């Protein structure tokens, strides 16, 4: 029995004259993701990509798992290839759908007849195949309005393809069609989710992390790298930068007013990230902030940090509650890593009573008590950089 994978586009199908560009990028992303799993043949027609394994070793289950993490695909189904005749469907496809059909109570059959020369019309094919399924699985009932399983029969040029049930794809649009962004990645729950959400809109993701040894440990950095590996399953390879931040944090502590520690620190992080973006021609910054979640994420605080950036700062989680953010982080499998209990750069030197409504003038004055410029330049100079690949 031969199986193929069908990937239906999401909103790319609605694109006008640019559609082709989006399709090309999606195809490239898919190929890159599947190339270790064996040889596949790719064809596309009518907003669907057909992926056909060329050798027996190609692992279809794994391929589907990977495809579920490719942005731009709305639905994924695996189809059984059979001879283009009712007999072919009866002998090959009907028994092969056993797993899905035994677990269901109701079903319906839909038919797409791309090959208009086939001697039966679509509704007739649906009728016939529905009858075969009822014969083979007597526990099933037909429900055309709200079935547990939709069996899809496609009559194409050379063969017929039958599938039962679709899985949701990752949605979004293909990575590489919307520019490049720099994510400030801390190690908490929020920032990986923010990265995932911005990447879902087709954005290539870079990450920047600030480390402050000995206040933060090697394990904290490894944790962040693990988070990046998880994100990379969706975003593809990530360029990961790590900024040595100890001296800056120490000087903030020694020279600035305590209630402004956090806000000044965040301004300096933003400044460093912005300068690196400038150098690398990255168009925007991304953070995992959500209005009012903590003292440093009030609207006034964001106003104070935004002014140091010379490019837009996107905050995809801005209107989300913590519980909603956690739900996404569980979905993308970063939650368990995020909650590993290591100090990160944001929790070192937290003031007892941080200013929740900082005034920009006061903050600027507080920051001016020390000349951070040489330290900022130094930190940028010593920033390390590596590429992070998905591990699974």
């Amino acid at each position, binding site marked *: 029995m031969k199986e193929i994978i069908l990937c239906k586009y999401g909103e790319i199908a609605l694109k006008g004259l640019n559609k082709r560009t989006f399709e090309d990028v999606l195809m490239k992303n898919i190929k890159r993701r599947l190339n270790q799993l064996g040889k596949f043949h790719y064809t596309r027609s009518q907003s669907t990509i057909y992926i056909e394994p060329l050798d027996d070793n190609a692992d279809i*289950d794994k391929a589907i798992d990977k495809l579920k993490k490719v942005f731009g695909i709305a639905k994924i189904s695996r189809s059984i290839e059979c001879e283009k005749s009712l007999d072919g469907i009866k002998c090959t496809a009907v028994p092969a759908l056993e797993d899905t059909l*035994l677990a269901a109570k109701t079903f319906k059959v839909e038919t797409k007849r791309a090959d208009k020369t086939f001697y039966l019309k679509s509704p007739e094919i649906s009728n016939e195949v529905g009858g075969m399924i009822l014969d083979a699985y007597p526990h099933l009932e037909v429900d055309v309005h709200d079935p547990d399983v939709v069996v899809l029969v496609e009559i194409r040029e050379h063969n017929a393809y039958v599938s039962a049930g679709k899985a949701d794809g990752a949605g979004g649009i293909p990575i590489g069609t919307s520019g490049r962004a720099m994510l400030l990645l801390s190690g908490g729950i929020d920032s990986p989710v923010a990265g995932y959400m911005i990447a879902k809109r087709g954005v290539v993701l870079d990450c920047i992390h600030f480390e402050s040894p000995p206040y933060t440990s090697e394990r904290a950095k*490894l944790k962040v790298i693990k988070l990046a590996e998880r994100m990379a399953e969706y975003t593809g390879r990530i360029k990961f930068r790590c900024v040595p931040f100890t001296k800056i944090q120490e000087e903030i502590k020694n020279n600035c007013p305590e209630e402004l520690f956090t806000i000044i620190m965040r301004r300096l992080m933003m400044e460093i990230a912005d300068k690196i973006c400038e150098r690398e021609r990255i168009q925007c910054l991304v953070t995992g902030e959500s209005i009012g979640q903590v003292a440093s994420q009030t609207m006034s605080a964001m106003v104070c940090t935004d002014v140091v950036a010379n490019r837009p700062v996107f905050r995809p989680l801005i209107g989300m509650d913590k519980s909603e953010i956690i739900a996404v982080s569980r979905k993308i499998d970063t939650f368990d890593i995020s909650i590993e209990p290591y100090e990160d750069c944001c929790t070192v030197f937290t003031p007892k009573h941080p200013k929740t409504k900082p005034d920009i003038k006061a903050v600027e004055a507080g920051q001016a008590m020390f000349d951070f410029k040489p330290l900022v330049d130094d930190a940028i100079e010593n920033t390390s950089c590596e590429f992070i690949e998905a591990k699974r």
Partner: protein
Amino acid sequence: MIYFDNAATTKPCDEAVKAVCETLQTNWSNPSSLHGLGLKAEQALNSAREIIARALDTDSECIYFTSGATESNNLAIFSTAKTLGRHKKKIVTTAIEHPSVSQPVKHLEENGFEVVYITPNKSGEINSADIISAVDDNTCLVSCQLVNNETGYILPVAKAYKAVKRLYPKVITHCDCVQGFMKLNISASCLNADLISLSGHKIYGPKGVGALYVKKGIRVLPVNFGGGQEKGIRSGTEAVPNIAGFGAAVEAFSTSIDERYQKMVELSNYLCQQAETVEGVTVNKFSESSPYIASVTVDKIKSETLLHYLEQKGIYVSSGSACSKGKKSDVLKAFGYDDKALDSTVRLSFSYDNNKFEIDEFLKQVKNAQAELVKIN
């Protein structure tokens, strides 16, 4: 020396010995320590975890280290009794399990659980339909071994569990894979098992280390409490040297599963062919069996006597399972061996470095034994 007792334990491979020694000498820190030395030990732990996960074709977060398969089996069974056993008091298992499964299950039976033991049919085989039909809404756990440790018989675990999971998705499926891991081509997903027990010393690793695979989303509760190691599931400082050795052994052998399997098939076929020429010697056959284990009945000679006779000639086999130390095997009885056969069956279990000449030597010495030893009736 001819060592045919590899199902009892295997000789650790060089890679495992090296990894154990190196870890003992240079990476002896506590993996839970916050400092860099601790981190290094933790990394050794995690790299072994990744290797073992890869061998089961799963993610490293699903692997939890234990002190061996006995602990893994106990943890799997008692944890399930805790998580689901309050409302569901039925366990389905087979009559041919290793004691590390049958004893915990028996303990639960004495404490109010209903246990269904599936027995082999007349031809000595477990029917997957029997397992499936024994499971119902009141069942919390199904526990079956993949390869029987005394006979090599391969149980239809994947098929049975697939149907069980389809009919009762909440039932926990546990598989004792000790005699199958690294010998047969298996993966966690193809077995449809929620929990899988593994052992280090059966696959050329050190003793005192094993693992439990826990499928994502399956809740496991600890049975011993302490420092919360292994995500709280198995407290106690991890045996880093043993774990490193386990990982090294798996890494050393994971690419040669098919090749070794083929060699074992040839070896066990050779044993069958040659044994036919010796009167009174039967190799007990099943439709599906692991070529790594052969159950051989030598008529009219007590297995223990034969074992010691062969031992004098430098050939090491076992009577039944090594764990039972000469006790009459309940497992062989469940397989339908008659009383005479029960008393006169030895187990040969092979490893990649056994060869045909050793089989010849074994049969030659069996013939000598037949000539020299006093027969029983």
